[in-house]
């Protein structure tokens, strides 16, 4: 009895439409909350294959080029923001991401296994899986 009722609910399009809408709204709410409550970061941590290569302060304008096993990435720091200004990877997602400056934001270059993450105080709040 109860099973058929549950199945009927699961089969209804309205149920899924509402569920999907709620899920999307929650995620959108979280993203908006994060956008409005973000802290300005102070360091950019450069990670390759889960290992921290170096930590760069966002305060100084610099440009570093990293030659990893799989390719070249140029990381640029300007006006307290960090971006990947050049990459010889194919998809260019890292370059298209643009510049970031808030704690927790990151740029990912999957082909080269390279990530750039903005942190607050030091690099200790980066969790390596």
């Amino acid at each position: 009895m109860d099973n058929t009722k549950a199945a009927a609910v699961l089969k209804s399009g309205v149920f899924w439409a509402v569920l999907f809408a709620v899920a999307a709204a929650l995620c959108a709410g979280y993203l908006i909350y994060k956008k409005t409550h973000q802290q300005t970061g102070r360091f950019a941590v450069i990670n390759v294959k889960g290992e921290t290569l170096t930590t760069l302060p966002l305060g100084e304008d610099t440009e570093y080029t990293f030659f990893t096993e799989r390719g070249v990435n140029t990381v640029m720091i300007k006006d307290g923001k960090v971006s990947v200004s050049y990459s010889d990877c194919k998809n260019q997602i890292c370059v298209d991401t643009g510049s970031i400056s808030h704690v927790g934001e990151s740029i990912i270059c999957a082909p080269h296994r390279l990530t750039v993450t903005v942190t607050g105080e030091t690099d200790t709040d980066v969790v390596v899986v």
Partner: protein
Amino acid sequence: MKIKDLTVTACLAAAALVVFVIEAQIPPLGIPGVKLGLSNALVLMAMAVVGRKHAAMVLFVKIILGNIFAGTPASFLFSLFGGAAAYAVMALTFKFFGRNKMWVTSALGALANNAGQLVAALLIMRTSAVLVYIPLLVIAGLAAGIFTGLAAQFSVRAYDKLRR
């Protein structure tokens, strides 16, 4: 295997491949790394018209050849993880939702696809920084999944009319 099923499967695989390759050429609009995944509509359509086993073949051809034509070793891994997860979820839920609610099957598949790709990203990058993308991936997955599901649904309807 019936000749007709074989032919239809081959046609769908070819179509999926073309859609996949064309989609790979379009620069990402808006959010970097997020795309519609329209080729999945062909996999879903295959499930409806020639069955799950044949749909797996369409997916297999799409992932292998698609990444040879328009991919990188990294994108291959992403496709494989995402595609396998999406296929598993869609194969399990397809019968339950039927042909009139393919958009639900597709949306669940798209979420599984994104979850699979996230696992691939975790394995490749070995950093939890990728987890930041979860909310965005849920929204993008739902939107893209519902759209491609509806596309598949209408295609199946047109296909059924054609066969009559």
